[in-house]
């Protein structure tokens, strides 16, 4: 297969990334539509299902090695402080303690750009002070309490608005605004657009900090063999963990092997290499034993990321006919103590047609745990604000909210001035509106009477999720006719094993049970992108298809040699090569391999380049019906309809999993989840799963998932776009609009908890 190396650009989480990638030189030919498929597009059950229901599945958390030592971390009790002295001698003498590391006995290893693995300048409650390895976790925990640390307390700030002020305590030398200035964007002439508008609405929205809280805590197990290090890590990005660990330890990347086994969720918090992994490696090196480090639930809520909060001031101007004439977005958000991103204006810039747009966004340092990408970073917050204000504009224009969106449908990407490979948002509106019964929606907000008041609302969504090269997959055909797929991607629970196997099973026409998938090992699998940004399925499945198609060719060629007929007279069908004329001439996969006297045949498939001159996005609309208990302020989400354009749906079951889970996280963000910090001390108050409230089984509404798209043939052979993030983006906005429709009071602040609703209702009278 001819290949070439290209420069490829893709958007992941918060930024455009440019990479060099080896891709098939001839591009890719689209696979047939799902109607013609036997395995792709079908609700195939998970390959890993029985492993997981039976408890056989082993996660990083479960790894046990002989002589394993256990590490625990001492964290800053102060929001802002400097360590003036540290004395670990007494702790080191405690029973079972094997080693202790801190800033005085470890080289300065750069971290967060301007800080270090152990930085005596502590910038949030939870910042790492020291790490202890001991025979047991309990012994390590006990030792933490005996490390004597003297702190010089510094003034702190845990509120972004306060942190932006001139005299605020400086968290970093360059000041508290990340990058020293806002991110700005403009097109057209905002003031001119404002001048020609008939309706102008200006509103301010706020969103809270949300914490990922995957069920499996962050954890690593590390083991040295000479100069080679093996790291088992619960991660969404094995290659970036490898590179960061290698760089931190001054090792060639080839000497670090990162293995990810089954993993209990991530949602973005496990995209970034943890300090704990490097600390464990340092300790393991010193004590000459493997080390396991796990965070507890409190640390999960302090130190491994969150969705930054936001204050967003939006102005939207429209003409009488409903045409948007100008939009502006001014916002700031707290990224925590170290660099992250709080920007959230992307949806406003792109999803609706508007010639005059300006945005200005500040990412602000505060003395709190640093942010990290969290399922559609920026977009969830931004979409809530945008879709809320658009409903208010529509009301002023006396237009149906859906009609208003249709009127402003964008046909091209207005930021990059590129056409979309596909955009079926209008189809999503139609399908979603029909499924929820949009015509039932009361035109007058708050028109429902009685204790329980119902309302309907909706919101639109845009995301990237096109996938990207480089992504490679090795396909091994074994002598027994079984197939092994090997790739350097990782299944973080989304179903990657299964969708990859489906593609190979479809093309090779063999039962899916004969396919095994090995992922998550940097020493074995060819490079694939991290599993975030809804990248995995659209990046990896085309590589599988490429490998399988090559294998088919290889089998045809082999059979031609064995049968001594021209290859052109042979066809491949259901795991067999047959002669088109003489039906007696046929060879099964097993027969071909037996005759070749080889154990295996190998192919390597690669993801194609994305098409030039197009923007690739996914789209969707979600419709929510809610019921507000006006006596308690409790909001019950009755139903959510999710109608989306996500290219080809590869597996209906795993796709529904992603939608159900994303919508429920959206409900959590809209209605209950919130990290709360004590302003007096800077300590996080919501450090367990009681105080940090995540949705339970009682909160799950009826959900209907409608896919309005077929394969996007311009993207790749498989033509899938990612679904993980699109599933969550519009949910809070749809719920906010439904609540407004139900009670006639607009809530500008997430989460829309009962206290806020009750007080809003009281003010309404």
């Amino acid at each position: 297969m001819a290949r070439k190396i290209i420069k490829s650009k893709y958007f992941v989480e918060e930024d455009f990334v440019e990479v060099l990638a080896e891709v098939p030189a001839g591009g890719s030919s689209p696979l047939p539509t799902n109607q013609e498929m036997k395995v792709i597009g079908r609700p195939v059950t998970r390959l890993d299902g029985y492993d997981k229901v039976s408890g056989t599945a082993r996660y990083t958390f479960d790894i046990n090695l002989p002589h394993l030592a256990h590490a625990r971390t001492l964290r800053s009790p102060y929001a802002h402080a400097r360590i003036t002295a540290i004395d670990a001698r007494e702790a080191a003498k405690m029973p079972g303690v094997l080693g202790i590391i801190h800033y005085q006995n470890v080289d300065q290893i750069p971290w967060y750009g301007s800080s270090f693995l152990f930085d005596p300048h502590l910038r949030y409650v939870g910042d790492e002070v020291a790490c202890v390895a001991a025979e047991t976790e309990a012994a390590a925990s006990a030792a933490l309490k005996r490390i004597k640390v003297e702190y010089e307390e510094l003034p702190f700030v845990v509120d972004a608005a306060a942190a932006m002020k001139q005299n605020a305590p400086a968290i970093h030398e360059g000041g508290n605004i990340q990058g020293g200035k806002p991110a700005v964007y403009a097109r057209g002439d905002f003031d001119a657009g404002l001048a020609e508008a008939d309706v102008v609405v200006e509103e301010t929205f706020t969103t809270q900090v949300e914490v990922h809280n995957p069920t499996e805590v962050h954890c690593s197990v590390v083991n040295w063999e000479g100069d080679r290090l093996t790291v088992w890590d619960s991660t969404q990005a094995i290659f970036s963990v490898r590179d960061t660990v290698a760089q931190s330890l001054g090792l060639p990347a080839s000497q670090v092997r990162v293995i990810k086994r089954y993993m209990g969720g991530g949602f973005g918090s496990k995209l970034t290499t943890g300090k704990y992994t490097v600390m464990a490696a340092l300790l393991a090196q010193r004590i000459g034993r493997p080390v396991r480090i796990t965070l507890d639930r409190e640390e999960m809520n302090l130190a491994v990321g969150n969705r930054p909060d936001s204050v967003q001031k939006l102005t939207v101007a429209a003409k009488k006919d409903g045409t948007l004439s100008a939009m502006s977005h001014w916002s700031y958000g707290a990224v925590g103590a170290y660099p992250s991103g709080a920007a959230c204006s992307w949806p406003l810039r792109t999803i609706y047609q508007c010639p005059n747009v300006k945005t200005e966004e500040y990412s602000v340092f505060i003395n709190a745990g640093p942010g990290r990408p969290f399922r559609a970073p920026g977009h969830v917050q931004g979409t809530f604000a945008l879709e809320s204000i658009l409903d208010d504009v529509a009301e002023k224009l006396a237009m149906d909210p859906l009609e208003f969106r249709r009127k402003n449908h964008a046909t091209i990407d207005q930021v990059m001035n590129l056409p979309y490979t596909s955009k079926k948002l209008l189809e999503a509106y139609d399908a979603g509106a029909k499924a929820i019964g949009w015509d039932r929606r009361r035109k007058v907000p708050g028109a429902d009477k009685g204790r329980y008041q119902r309302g309907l609302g909706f919101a639109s969504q845009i995301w990237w999720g096109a996938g990207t090269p480089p992504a490679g997959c090795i396909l091994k055909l074994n002598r027994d006719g079984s197939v092994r797929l090997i790739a350097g991607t990782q299944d973080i629970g989304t179903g990657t094993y299964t969708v990859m196997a489906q593609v190979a099973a479809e093309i090779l026409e063999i039962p899916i049970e004969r396919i095994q998938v090995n992922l998550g090992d940097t020493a074995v699998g060819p490079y694939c992108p991290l599993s975030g940004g809804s990248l995995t399925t659209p990046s990896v499945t085309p590589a599988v298809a490429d490998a399988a198609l090559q294998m088919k060719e290889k089998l045809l060629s082999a059979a031609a040699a064995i049968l001594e007929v021209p290859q052109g007279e042979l066809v491949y069908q259901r795991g067999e090569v047959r002669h088109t004329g003489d039906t007696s001439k046929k060879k099964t996969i097993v027969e071909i391999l037996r005759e070749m006297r080889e154990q295996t045949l190998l192919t390597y498939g690669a993801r194609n380049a994305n098409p030039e001159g197009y923007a690739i996005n996914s789209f969707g609309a979600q419709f929510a019906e809610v019921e507000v208990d006006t006596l308690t302020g409790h909001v019950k989400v009755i139903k959510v309809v999710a109608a989306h354009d996500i290219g080809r749906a590869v597996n209906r079951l795993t796709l529904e999993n992603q939608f159900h889970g994303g919508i429920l996280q959206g409900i959590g963000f809209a209605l209950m989840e919130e990290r709360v910090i004590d302003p007096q001390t800077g300590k996080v108050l919501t450090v367990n799963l009681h105080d940090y409230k995540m949705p339970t089984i009682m909160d799950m509404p009826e959900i209907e998932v409608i896919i309005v798209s077929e394969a996007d043939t311009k993207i790749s052979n498989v033509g899938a776009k990612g679904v993980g993030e699109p599933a969550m983006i519009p949910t809070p906005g749809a719920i906010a609009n439904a609540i407004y429709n139900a009670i006639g009071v607009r809530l500008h602040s997430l989460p829309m908890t009962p206290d806020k609703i009750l007080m809003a209702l009281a003010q309404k009278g």
Partner: protein
Amino acid sequence: MEGTFRINGRHELLEFSERATLLQVLRDNGHQEVKEGCAEGQCGSCLVLLDGRLVNSCQVFAAAAVNREITTVQGLGTIHAPHAIQEALVEVGAVQCGFCTPGMVMAAYYLLRHHPDPSEKEIRRALDGNLCRCTGYTKIIEGIRLAARRMRQA
């Protein structure tokens, strides 16, 4: 300390500290099918049956479980001989990352033993102490209904 536990029908003589929870003792002795999500009784990942009662094993001292009958998810069914609940959860697609799944299976088993024909509301109430961050629960409910139907017919 030392004590005998009857785990999934087999007697096991185990050593443990007086502070150890049942969860820690199970996991330290190869029963890693019992998961730990919070260690504070707030997530349900560590559910086991203790003398037939559903408990958070992180909320029970091992010392209090000595000489008692403990059933983990592997005591209900294995990968080779899965229980009807386990089969149904796989079939309907109720498993995503799978970390909460053993706890879910235990809660479902406990429910169906007492209520072979639960309503959807009863299923929700029975699983309201089990957190799942991935699936959105819908298919878990569906799987339990399917299992209940099959178990009644069996």
